[in-house]
Each structure stands twice: as structure tokens, then as C-alpha cells.
């Protein structure tokens, strides 16, 4: 239980930090559409007023993907609260695991798709070993939560059988 509390604290800090980054990212992104001239600095050596609309839209897709990851983290945090309440093989936990898997998958599709579109729109195409490794890792993480949901479902069934026999 000590480890569970530590894990909950760590995920809470990670969640707050991610949320903070979103608080800056979303208004900044909106500002690039509404008042680009007010942004005093350059992005990748380019003034914001010169950035094409498609690039800004692809940035929006990436931000959407990040939002999915943050939501997955939020559900993960909520699942740990359920664990602490000793609700382990509970329907809510199973649903949460599956939802985390879905959010991670959606987040991956949006961020990877957005990044690739962004690179293509700027005629910058390359194969990055790190990108491949990270992509497979995120896909695995999403699938792992789906599998965990299925395994917990089986454990729940066993628990219910147990309760009935006793």
C-alpha cells in the first residue's frame, strides 16, 4: 500500500505538470490564429505571422493528442484511488483500464499523425529510430491496458464465483 500511495503521488504530480503545460499550450495555439503579431518570439526560426494555416491546424491535432494522454493519466489516477479503496476487481476498474487503452491509442494516432503531417507539409521527411521505438512503446502501452482490462474481467468473474460458493 505504501507503493500504491507513492505511485498515486507521482501520477498526481505528472498530471498537474501536464495540465500546466496545456494551460500554456492551448491559449498560445489560439493566439497564433487570432493575434499572431502579439507573439514576440520565433518558432523554429520563423515568425508566427509567417506560419501557414495548415501548420497551425496540424499543431492543433498534436495538442488534441496530448489532451488524450492527459485524460488517460487522469483516469489512471482515479483507478489508483479505487485500488486504495480495495476495489480491485471492480467493473469501474475494468472500464477504466479499457478507457485508458483507448485514450492512449487515440492520443498516439493524433500526435503521430499530426507530427507526420507537419513534417510532410514542411517537406521535411526522415526516418527516426527514436520515433519508431517511441511509437511501438506507446502502442504497446495502450494494448497493455486493454489486455489488463480483459484479465481483470476474468479475475472479477472468479471472485463472483467465489462469493457465490461461500
Amino acid at each position: 500500500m505504501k507503493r500504491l500511495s507513492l505511485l498515486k503521488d507521482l501520477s498526481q504530480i505528472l498530471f498537474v505538470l501536464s495540465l500546466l503545460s496545456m494551460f500554456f499550450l492551448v491559449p498560445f495555439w489560439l493566439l497564433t490564429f487570432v493575434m499572431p503579431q502579439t507573439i514576440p518570439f520565433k518558432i523554429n526560426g520563423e515568425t508566427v505571422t509567417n506560419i501557414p494555416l495548415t501548420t497551425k491546424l496540424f499543431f492543433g491535432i498534436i495538442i488534441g493528442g496530448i489532451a488524450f494522454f492527459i485524460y488517460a493519466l487522469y483516469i489512471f489516477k482515479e483507478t489508483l484511488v479505487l485500488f486504495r479503496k480495495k476495489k480491485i476487481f471492480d467493473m469501474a476498474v475494468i472500464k477504466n483500464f479499457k478507457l485508458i487503452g483507448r485514450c492512449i491509442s487515440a492520443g498516439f494516432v493524433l500526435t503521430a499523425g499530426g507530427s507526420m503531417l507537419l513534417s510532410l507539409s514542411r517537406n521535411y521527411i526522415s526516418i527516426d529510430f527514436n520515433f519508431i521505438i517511441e511509437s511501438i512503446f506507446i502502442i504497446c502501452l495502450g494494448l497493455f491496458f486493454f489486455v489488463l482490462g480483459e484479465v481483470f474481467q476474468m479475475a472479477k468473474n472468479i471472485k463472483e464465483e467465489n462469493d457465490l460458493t461461500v
Partner: protein
Amino acid sequence: MKRLSLLKRFIDILRILLIAGVIIGLPFCLLLLFAPQSVSMDILDVPASDLPTIEIILITTMVASLYFAILALRLLSNTLVYFRDGYFFESEVALNFNRIGKAIIAGYMTSSLPCIVYQTFTTPVIISDSFTDWLTDTLFTLALGLFFIVLSEVFLAAKRMKEENDLTV
């Protein structure tokens, strides 16, 4: 179960890629360490002969510590085989989850922690990470490791429950 097979396949691919990374990366790092003049290419725009020895040692440690990631992936792949065969509540599953968690944390301690300490006290030439990247990476890796350790405790509890169930039936 279709997802389980897919996950196993992806994990095996990831493991093979990491093994390839170590097989290529480790001799290259050792070459940089012992015969930097024989490497004619630039590493992140810095000539190989200008790289500080301490940074090469740190990079070599990072590549070597991929062993822990490979170990964690192998254990996860083995655990998925147990799942595929319908053995969900074996003590090996709980033990594997515990080992995976420890391998993730050990991998972090041997690869990233020395780099962070080094960056804190000196100005690095090629090893550089922003504070936010460092913080989120640290938190994420530690949380992932701890999650597997918590999972091992959960699966141990499930195993006990199943044993009780078998006894009552």
C-alpha cells in the same frame, strides 16, 4: 485475445530493435572511448575526437542499461505467454510483474540519473535535456516501474483468492 497476440508481437519487435541498438551502439561507444581518432564522423555536430571522455562513458552506460529494458520486455513477453495459455493467477505472473517494475527502475537509475547529476554540475557538450523533459521522464519512468510492482501485489491477491475459491469448490 487478439489484442494479446498483437501486443506480444509488438513487444517482441521492440525487444529486437533494442537488441539491435545495443549490438550496434555498444561497440561504437567503445570505439569512441578507446579510439576516437578512428571515428571520422561528427556526433551531434561535435567531432568525435572533441567529445569529453566522461560524456562518452555516460552514453556507453546509457546504451548498456538498455539491457534492463530488454530484460523487462522479455519478462513481459513471457507473462503474456502465461496469459495466452490461460494462467492468469500463477505466482510466476506476479513475480514477473515485480521483476519488470524493478528492471524499469534499475534501468532509469543506471542510465538517466548519472546524466542528470552530471548536467547539474557541469555544462555538457552533447548530453543535454531541458529541466521539464528531465522531470516528466523521471516521473513517468518511476510511475511505470511502480505500477508494475503494484500490479504484482494485485495479482498475488488474485492468486490467493483463486486458491480459496478452488478449496471451497
